[in-house]
């Protein structure tokens, strides 16, 4: 593999890990909120979270560009007050894949939390556990397999992200050209078949490895909870 290809691989993993890190806390909170709380505007929130799942990623990318681009409302503010430019940097790639992966993460968490037996939570409350402690010591550990699969889905979705990334972050070698973008770039150029194939193999291996690791972790979590795994 050429240094540029290594760079694409490393960039992909970096963006995917950052995406998972960025998503973890808000994903958990939103998932728990949707599963356990009733509040005004819940339907609107659900719809908002799910938009990236149903519109073409290129639309998501373009909307992000409109908001966070150098002429966007938030983008302009970021640049003028913080001197911080988001669009067409690797951080933009992280934001793009995080937005696209958000519904997957939130749905997984919400389903996992819904499946947690509330009567077990009640028993912890009668022993004197505050709501926050119940969340940390009962709900989240019991929902761990679902949370784990949500994080894995987010990681995998980020690895495969193309449309929103190329629209919002561009395809800048060494900055935003992740594996899918690099593969596309190879296919577009003359004599790029061999490098494209190499990257395809790498891409398949990385995704498969992520799935295997997540399956092992999920099995371990399920076994801890008493399932047969």
């Amino acid at each position, binding site marked *: 593999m050429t240094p540029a290809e290594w760079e694409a691989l490393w960039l992909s993993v970096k963006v995917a890990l950052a995406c998972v890190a960025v998503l973890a806390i808000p994903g958990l909170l939103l998932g728990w909120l949707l599963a356990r709380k009733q509040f005004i505007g819940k339907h609107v929130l659900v719809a908002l979270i799910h938009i990236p799942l149903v519109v073409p990623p290129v639309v998501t990318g373009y909307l992000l560009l409109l908001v966070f681009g150098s002429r966007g409302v938030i983008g302009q503010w970021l640049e003028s007050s913080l001197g911080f430019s988001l669009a067409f940097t690797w951080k933009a790639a992280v934001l793009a894949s995080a937005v696209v992966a958000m519904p997957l993460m939130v749905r997984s968490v919400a389903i996992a939390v819904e499946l947690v037996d509330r009567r077990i939570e*009640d028993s912890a409350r009668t022993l004197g556990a505050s709501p926050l402690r119940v969340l940390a010591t009962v709900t989240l550990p019991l929902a761990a397999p679902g949370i784990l699969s949500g994080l894995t889905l987010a990681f995998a979705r980020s690895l495969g992200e193309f449309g929103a990334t190329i629209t919002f972050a561009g395809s800048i070698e060494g900055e935003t050209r992740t594996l899918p973008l690099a593969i596309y770039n190879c296919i577009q150029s003359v004599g790029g078949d061999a490098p494209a194939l190499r990257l395809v193999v790498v891409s398949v291996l990385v995704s498969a490895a992520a799935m295997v690791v997540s399956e092992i972790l999920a099995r371990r979590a399920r076994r801890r909870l008493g399932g047969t795994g």
Partner: protein
Amino acid sequence: MNLELDIRVTRGAFRLEVASRLTSATTGIFGPSGAGKTTLLHALAGLVRPDNGRIVLDDTVLFDSSRDVSVPVHKRHVAVVFQDGRLLPHLTAAGNLRYAEGLALAAGLREPTLAFDRIVQLLDLGSLLGRRPHHLSGGETRRVALGRALLAQPRLLLLDEPLAGLDHARKEQLLPFLRQAQLATGIPMVMVSHDLGEILHLTDQVMLLRDGRVIGQGNLFDLVQQHEPLAVLRGAGLINVLRLRVREHREDWGITFLEPLDQTTAVAPPVLKASLHANLAPGAETWAMLRPEDVALALGPVERISMQNQLRGRIHKIVRTESRTLCLVDVGAELMVDVTHHTADDMALVEGKAIWCLFKAQALTLGTSGTSSSPAN
């Protein structure tokens, strides 16, 4: 304990209305399924919010709708042992116990009689500590759940059908632990059950619930003297539960001799004969169940008959229902005896009459596991 209750709870079409005061250290709530027993417990624990009313435990107002007070569940210090145990599945038995202990310590509760090692010893949990809940049997799960609830150092312990779903042998194994917990910790308990025998092992103070309302409350022997409570109690299988101490065994006769623990009156304490239970050490406390219909009445002692137990006593109350006559006989312990109207009329049974209670040794169903007379202090 002084627990004042005056609440109304609506759950769909069901309505629970309870106004009562519980002062006994242990109270049993008895009633048929659907009577509202569990709903009442949940309201006490704070898991169900009453429509309106008041709950006051000693000096603490737990709920008062008129002042908009409702102490959250985790601040009530009212622990519940649920029917299904509800252990935290991701923790071991020890982890579950430590969880409750940690919460008690965090709340500043450090009662030495409720220290971890003591509870483990009291409920014989040592061999279970490393196991996860799904590797515990039903009886073991409930023992751990009981230990966990005690370690939370509650001001009040609620037991929701703690023996339901266990087979007879398991129930018998668990009952002495409940009794130990009651004696050794002194934590006030309210136990809900649809099995009168279970309740009477722990207390004779009973609240009777039916269709969401209290139809009687107090000492069992007072309750059976009232029409409606008696009907409910009989429907559920009224039973004498005698707390006994083992005196000695006569292996050659196949008989174990016992004497009552709680003697009611000045009548000479009876010696009871049961079929041999050699596993119970002399001096050990145990209990026996005796069905009121298994006791025969006689006007004098009867010789040459196979009834090994012949206890002299005095009828202190006669309760007639549509079908049967229930006599409360003081034989040194209080005994309920169920006879037909015909018998009652034929023998001219009246209150105050001296009478003999006869029953076979086998009619006394002894608990197979005794508890030591001085619980491990």
